[in-house]
């Protein structure tokens, strides 16, 4: 494909000089005009027959209670960047992405061409092909047409010859490849080819007439195909992107006493329905999904298409369970909520509100029966921590580690979380981080009592447990006048900052990597040539957009090496979404796959920034046997540069 801006300017000048003019067929008989009218009506009717149904299903769904159109600025920007610039499409799959972008841009360029084309058929063409504007415009459109034709041919080859697996529909045998896409590609190619060919035939010639009709017929066949196929995204996805919920993995608040999440069709909202019909089946979500990549039944694309199939068969007011014919409960509970799917999606589908919504529907009504899940919820109900351990254990650690109690005078409330409070390794991270804070002279204190932030309950869809924990923590923080929280756990950070909002105003919260990076300059510099591979935790990267801070901490201590999948495309450790507390995985373990990837960097140390990733990799690395790299949290890496504890004491 040839980007517009590299076309030699000489060629452009030549064309402007009149080397080729788009030929039109000239006069049309009334019979031709009548035929054209009939065909347009037929095509339009076929289009609406399906599109009307889709619109009806979307508008017939429940309204999104929490939806606000304003502030609109971000929506306009997202529309410009993701739709008009095709930024996400190109960034995540550059070559096919660019090809897609050219097809899209050509469609935009063709808007006027197509209108004029049809108008010509009725003898009311408004662009003069020989006029200055017409010439330039048609030529530019021609260049786009060329790029589009090349692109669509390339995409055709990719789909039917290269055949990437994620384009397939494993849920539907026989759908290894989408033949309708082939037809659509053919039609687009015909549209472009007939347009381009018209530059090379005589004005008002028979050939021009044939080209004109071929172009018209392709157009009129193309139109009704759009709503009948995944090419519906042509119309819907710009709307979907414009109307997104706004936040990443934003789980909407429950709406009233009868809302338990996505239980039946009645619970599907207009946004969910719109997104389901927008899916273009590109499979980026599945390509990046840790569950789908390790042999589990979850396939995020199929979740979305399952909702679409449900809407097609039962409609948005049906009482039929959503976790039934088209979506399996088992799959919904295999999601680690890593967010790779939602992050990747080029058409604005928000997978996590759907997957978590389905979980909510199952858990809030008691339909999910899982012995580990039940144990987890009972532990959270009874012990207020996900591990089911006694709060005394945390207290003992606080005393033993001599952590000061937060009393409102300190700058930070150091949130231990379940790993920091109970897990031996998590406690080591806390100790290291505390050493750094002490060295910097930062005042901090820990809560006397701390309950789980509710993260596992939130992600597994248990609104009852989540609400109780969030409210109780918020109340305790208000009483203690907590203003700033710092935590070693990205899950705690996310849940406090975003998810607690439904029940009150949470204090400011930051992850220790942000703190460490900010104070990097004040820490002793002891850079070695040790190779340290950094693993981006999902809840720090995709959820919080923190990529550079932990890297800064690592770069100050050694040589940062990157895993094959990193930053936004980082691969999950397998712990999120409450899965750290559930039973055995089917297929490969997500943690093992990722650990191997980190080992493959050849690093001697793996730097983690999340105690859950840490615990998952600890097990996974143990399985790789002798010679596995050591595993450290960034706080531990930072603390290594500190003078010995004795010196610290003397300084203070």
């Amino acid at each position, binding site marked *: 494909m040839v980007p517009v801006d590299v076309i030699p300017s000489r060629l452009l000048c030549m064309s402007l000089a009149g080397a080729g003019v788009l030929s039109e067929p000239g006069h049309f008989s009334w019979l031709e005009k009548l035929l054209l009218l009939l065909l347009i009506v037929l095509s339009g009717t076929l289009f609406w027959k399906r599109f009307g149904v889709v619109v009806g299903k979307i508008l017939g769904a429940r309204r999104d209670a929490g939806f606000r159109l304003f502030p609109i600025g971000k929506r306009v920007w997202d529309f410009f960047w993701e739709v008009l610039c095709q930024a996400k499409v190109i960034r995540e799959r550059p070559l096919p992405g660019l090809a897609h972008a050219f097809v899209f841009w050509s469609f935009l360029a063709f808007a006027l061409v197509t209108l004029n084309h049809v108008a010509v058929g009725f003898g009311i063409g408004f662009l003069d092909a020989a006029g200055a504007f017409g010439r330039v415009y048609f030529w530019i459109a021609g260049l786009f047409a060329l790029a589009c034709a090349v692109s669509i041919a390339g995409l055709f080859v990719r789909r039917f010859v290269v055949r990437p697996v994620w384009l397939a529909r494993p849920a539907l045998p026989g759908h290894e490849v989408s033949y309708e896409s082939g037809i659509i590609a053919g039609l687009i190619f015909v549209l472009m080819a007939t347009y381009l060919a018209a530059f090379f035939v005589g004005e008002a010639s028979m050939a021009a007439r044939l080209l004109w009709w071929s172009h018209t017929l392709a157009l009129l066949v193309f139109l009704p195909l759009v709503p009948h196929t995944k090419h519906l995204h042509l119309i819907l996805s710009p709307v979907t992107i414009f109307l997104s919920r706004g936040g990443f993995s934003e789980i909407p608040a429950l709406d009233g006493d009868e809302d338990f999440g996505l239980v039946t069709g009645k619970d599907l909202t207009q946004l969910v329905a719109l997104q389901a019909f927008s899916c273009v089946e590109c499979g980026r979500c599945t390509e990046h999904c840790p569950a789908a990549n390790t042999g589990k039944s979850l396939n995020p694309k199929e979740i979305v298409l399952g909702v679409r199939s449900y809407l097609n068969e039962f409609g948005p007011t049906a009482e039929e369970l959503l976790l039934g014919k088209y979506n399996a409960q088992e799959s919904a509970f295999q999601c680690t909520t890593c967010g790779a799917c939602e992050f990747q999606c080029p058409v604005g589908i928000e997978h996590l509100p759907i997957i978590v919504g389905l979980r909510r529907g199952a858990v809030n009504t008691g339909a999910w029966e899982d012995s580990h899940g039940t144990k987890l919820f009972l532990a959270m109900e009874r012990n207020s921590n996900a591990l089911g*351990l006694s709060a005394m254990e945390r207290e003992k650690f606080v005393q033993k580690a001599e952590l000061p109690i937060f009393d409102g005078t300190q700058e930070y409330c150091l949130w231990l979380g379940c790993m920091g409070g109970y*897990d031996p390794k998590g406690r080591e991270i806390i100790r290291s981080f505390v050493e750094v804070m002490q060295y910097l002279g930062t005042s901090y204190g820990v809560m006397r009592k701390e309950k789980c932030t509710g993260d596992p309950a939130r992600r597994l869809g248990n609104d009852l447990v989540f609400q109780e924990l969030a409210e109780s923590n918020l109340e305790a923080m208000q009483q203690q006048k907590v203003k700033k929280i710092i935590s070693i756990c990205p899950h705690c950070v996310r849940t406090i900052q975003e998810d607690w909002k439904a029940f009150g105003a949470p204090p400011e919260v930051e992850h220790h990597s942000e703190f460490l990076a900010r104070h990097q300059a004040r820490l002793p510099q002891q850079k070695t040539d040790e190779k340290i591979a950094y693993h981006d935790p999902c809840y720090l990267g995709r959820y919080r957009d923190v990529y550079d801070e932990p890297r800064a901490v690592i770069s100050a201590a050694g040589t940062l090496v990157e895993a094959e999948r990193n930053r936004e495309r980082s691969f999950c450790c397998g712990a999120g979404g409450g899965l750290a507390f559930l039973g055995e995985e089917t297929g490969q373990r997500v943690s093992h796959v990722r650990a191997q990837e980190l080992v493959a960097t050849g690093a001697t140390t793996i730097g983690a920034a999340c105690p859950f990733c840490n615990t998952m990799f600890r097990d996974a690395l143990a399985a790789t046997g002798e010679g596995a790299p050591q595993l450290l949290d960034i706080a531990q890496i930072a603390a290594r540069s500190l003078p010995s504890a004795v010196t610290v004491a003397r300084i203070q």
Partner: protein
Amino acid sequence: MSELTSGVLVFLEIKNREISRISWEAMAAAHTLAEGHGLSVDVALVSSPGNPIFETIHGKAPRTVYAIDHPLLHEYTADGFAAAYAQLIEQVNPSYVVFPHTYQVRDFAPCLATRFKQVLISDVTGIETHAGAETAPPTFIRQLLQGKLNAHYRHRGTGPCFLSIQAGAFRADAAEAGATTLATFEPRLDAAKIRTKPGEPFRASAQTVDLGSASILVSVGRGIKEEANLPIVQELATALGAELAASRPICDSGWLPMERQVGSSGQTVAPKVYLAIGISGAIQHLVGMKGSQCIVAINKDENAPIFEVADYGIVGDLFDVVPALTAAVLKAKG
């Protein structure tokens, strides 16, 4: 028999055709009580008087041994036992009625006490007698909140005081010579008033591994190094009559089946004794076994987190300690 002075009446229990160990302990408790208050001890037992079991009664000699004999008592029912015991208590009119705290006693004794408008002081771990017994009745000690609190109870008012004694709380007395009378007591029982129909006792068939019901677990972790080393822990488990369990890496390696895995992704267990051998004590493992009554850790790393939760720890190489332990267990069991 109202001519008898008031005393302590102990009900003994037969298990596997012997008077159970805990019954002797209850008798020792009864003697402690009797001595503190100048009372005599009588014992009672459901059995026909010809049963040679009576010859096995030892410890400090009771004044009278009652053989409670009735065909309707051949199998245990709460209705039958409560009715028969009530009649004997009415006849003997003791100040104290003492039971071993067994599952059977828990089933009928509260009901029996209720008939006398009394409350059983159950699961007693200690008895404090005070000087001047008439004015200062004894204090009974029992545990509350799963052993996190000790409580002192006192009996008030007239009527017999009912107690059940926790296993192991008292040490059975050594045999002492003394004069004992054997008396047969035939209660009046009506078959129509026995409302429950008990079936034959049976043992649960041990078809699958059930870590949950094992009273001792020997659990092995990565410290074992190789599959070939597993027999040394298996031998210890056999000596202890324990089930073998493992941490996740052992089951991951396929050295032991997954159903033997203890931890967050495996089973949650709470045995009487949990021996963690070569297990460092990662949180995923700890949550699966923290409820154990007694945790023993054997690990060569003295800083292993498992020692934080252990009641007893041995810091040492498991390849030395475990065989020594197996030998010591076998020696102790004779």
